[in-house]
């Protein structure tokens, strides 16, 4: 097991290096001028020359690349061109938003996907099954941006004034304050990596609300998260429902289930104790793999619901030619993605004793 993990980690090094190279090349060959993107349309040539010197953009590309790889290897992701602040700091502010969004979307997708899939499998070929599968197929067929616009219209405008009304955008209602954990716990003098971790956790509003027992913050956060999480989670929910259905149908046709039934075990227990446990194995993989889809979808969801997460940060950085942000954020996302895949594979092995990792 340990050897497997080490091997996988080693294997991910060339992948990561490939990511760094690819993203660096992509960032450089994007047409456009970072100077005028950052400084406005009326910046003169003289100003832009000075700007390029300051950011090393006047150096030959290979030199820029080596400098960059050196910096990344020592943990420095550089300073954003547009914001003039370290990329790591921007990540501490923006990653929690995307994290919160994708986790809620994943929870929605997993819970409802598994429930629907199970229902559908148990009632195979019944109207419920057909209806569920239609919903599931509809789910994968609706673009996030159509669903998002529709939700915003329905819940914020049509249902305005009813208990069902939900905020159409943003993370919190103006006026709801988030007290940084560092301040709440009197740790403002804390520095270094622990402080970064603390600030990161503090920026995850849900964690912050729970740790500081701030009920109104928790409620407001959840209310703002419902629409984007559902819009984002619909496609993975549909995929998970289909996977659960077919996987459960597979398992329910196996001999040991027949044995259990023959022994007179109640059908409900057959499904719950014998069927689901084994049927969930492939579902776990699908849940893990849908994280990539969620991060992609987050780009559009964050745009439509006006959330300042990393998806929108990267698209804005691409539009604004902020190479440094593009590079830094994409590398971090790739690392997260690689780690998640590893975790999925390992959990797969833990769940299924038949699989031995070598």
């Amino acid at each position, binding site marked *: 097991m340990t050897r497997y993990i080490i091997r996988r980690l080693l294997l991910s090094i060339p992948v990561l290096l490939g990511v760094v190279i690819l993203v660096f090349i992509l960032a450089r060959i994007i047409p456009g*001028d*970072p100077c005028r993107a950052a*400084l*406005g349309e009326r*910046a*003169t040539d*003289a*100003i832009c020359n*000075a700007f390029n010197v300051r950011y090393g953009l006047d150096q030959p590309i290979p030199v820029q690349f080596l400098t960059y790889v050196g*910096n990344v290897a*020592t*943990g*420095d*992701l*550089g*300073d954003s061109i*547009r*914001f*003039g602040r*370290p990329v*790591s700091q921007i990540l*501490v*502010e*923006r*990653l929690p*938003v995307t*994290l919160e969004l994708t986790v809620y979307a*994943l929870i929605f997708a997993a819970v409802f996907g598994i429930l629907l899939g199970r229902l559908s499998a148990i009632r195979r070929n019944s109207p419920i099954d057909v209806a569920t599968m239609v919903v599931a197929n509809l789910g994968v067929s609706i673009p996030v941006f159509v669903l998002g616009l529709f939700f*915003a219209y329905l819940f*914020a405008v049509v249902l305005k004034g009813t208990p069902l*009304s939900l*905020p*159409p*955008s*943003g993370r*919190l*209602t*103006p006026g709801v304050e988030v007290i940084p954990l560092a301040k709440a716990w009197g740790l*403002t003098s804390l*520095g*270094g*990596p*622990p*402080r*970064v*971790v603390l*600030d*990161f*956790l503090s920026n995850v509003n849900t964690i912050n609300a729970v740790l500081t027992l701030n009920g109104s913050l928790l409620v407001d956060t959840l209310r703002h998260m419902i629409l984007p999480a559902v819009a984002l989670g619909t496609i993975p929910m549909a995929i998970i429902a289909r996977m659960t259905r077919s996987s459960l149908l597979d398992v329910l046709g196996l001999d040991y289930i027949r044995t259990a039934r023959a022994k007179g075990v109640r059908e409900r227990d057959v499904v719950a104790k014998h069927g689901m446990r084994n049927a969930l194995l492939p579902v776990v993989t699908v849940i*893990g793999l849908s994280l990539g889809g969620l991060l992609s979808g987050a780009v559009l969801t964050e745009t*439509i619901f*006006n959330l300042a997460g990393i998806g929108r940060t990267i698209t804005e950085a691409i*539009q604004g030619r902020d190479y440094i942000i593009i590079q830094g954020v994409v590398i*971090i996302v790739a*690392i997260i993605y690689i*780690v*998640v895949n590893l975790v*999925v594979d*390992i*959990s797969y092995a833990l769940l299924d004793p038949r699989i031995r990792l070598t």
Partner: protein
Amino acid sequence: MSRTPRRSPLLALLATAGILVAACGGAATPSPAASTAAPAAASAAASTAPSVAPSSAPSAAAFTPMVYPATGNVDCAAKTFDGKAYTGEVKAIKALDAKTVEFDLCVPDVAFLSKVAFSSFAINDTDYLAAHVPDGSIVQQPNGTGPYMLKEWVKGDHITLAANPNWTGTPVLAPTVVVKWSAEAAQRLVELQSGNVDGIDNVGTTDFETVSKDSTLKLFPREGLNTLYIGMNVADKPWDNEKVRQAIGMGIDRAQIVKNFFPGGSSVADYFTPCSIPNGCVGDPWYTFDPVAAKKLLADAGFPNGFKTKLQLRDAVRGYMPQPKIIAQEIQSQLQKNLGITATIEVQESTTYIDNSDAGKLDGLFLLGWGVDYPDQTDFVDYHFAGGTKAFGPLFPDVVGAIKKAAQGASDDARKADYITVNGLIKQHVPMVPVAHGGSATAFKADVEGAHSSPLTSEVFAVMKPGDRTQLVFSQNAEPGGLYCADESDGESLRVCEQITQGLYGYKVAGTAVEPALAKQCTPSADLMTWTCDLQENIKFADGSTFDANDVVQSFAVQWDAANPLHKGRTSDFSYWAGLFGGFLNPPAQ
């Protein structure tokens, strides 16, 4: 902007991500120890500001007037400073005493007051500059004499402003102001309709009617101090033929475009400069729409059956360009129908497009516009037709001559005749076809007293009272880049800065006229080459320090002198200084 290694924060970040990711994967839970680990020192640029303050810390007792440049002289005739090239118009800035400042110029500048009223030239405290410029913290944490002060800036999400306790003007009506942002007009409108915000900027073109009909909302149309034009580069064929350019000028039904695709409050552009700018629309108005005459001109020029060309644009919504692709498609269809010209639409990325236009590389027809910086003709015609941009190709000597002559005039009346000539020559040569002055609007909840819109997009929150609420929430297009506005150029940053800081002059609420702010009055000498400003007394900055003449000199000096140790901001380019006052002392080597 150093590149010192930041190993630790990144690793910690990865660790956090790892922990959380692992938590989702069901393998581990975040240990509370991780969040309460041992303290160390980092990540606190603001709290550990290195004290690199210059030695000349003024004591409270004696006032030592500051003069800039302290050494060396600007030679206006030779256009040099200390032997180095200098292209600017400012010669010297002197504090005469604690309450008087004198500006010496190289050329007469009738627009001087309009320029100093621009929010980039707000006054900062000398000591604050010394303490917060070197580490860049001033970009995140401004300090001004305005009605509000920054309380909190949650990056990416919102900015909270609180009333400035040291403000001595009319008390603010909303103790707290929250500024949010959203790039989509529809989203801003939903926020307003759902009651989450009190006011929004730039109501969408199609939503003017929706807002007007809604009794709980109120629309505040904003006059369009901007111009959308169809440009042509005279160096390229067939635009080198004046008849072809005139044909385009006559062959586009501009009224149809404005009527169908621009929001209320927009007008057909009959001159390049909008009428609210003094001398903007004097002389002959533009050609009337006449497709028959236009076709005849084209035939005379040798194109009886039209020709093929490109119609270039960028997909960026601006005051002058409310619906970029839709307006481009309308012009495309008019070119075909009215003139037989087949144009293919080419959308370019925004910054590439600006680069290409400034370099004169847009070889087809191109759609571009200009929004006012300060309300004077020089802001419009000088940049476009006297050498600021190469977008239209080689300059017309007669136009350049007339513009240069007009800029020297001592008063608006004295310049009128010259601008009649300028406008007439532009109409004759047609380097571009002015299409529209695009109106826009803010919208507020009906119960917000004092709500307004400003033609310069400088809405003043201090005069607004949000019903019985204590908090005014405003949603604008984008997040400010930074809040040290000497070094910012976008309207979104400037609007927030204007609530926090003041300049010597300011613009009247909802107007374009200047009125004194930190100065009681600035008076010019007879030749308009020297401006002397008497300053307000007993003014304090938000941080408690007192405002005096040296603050004025220093606030200007750090922008003016590229070699000043405090010549630093978010981008350190101070593009508005260069744009409005011509150039820097000790400009960076090319």
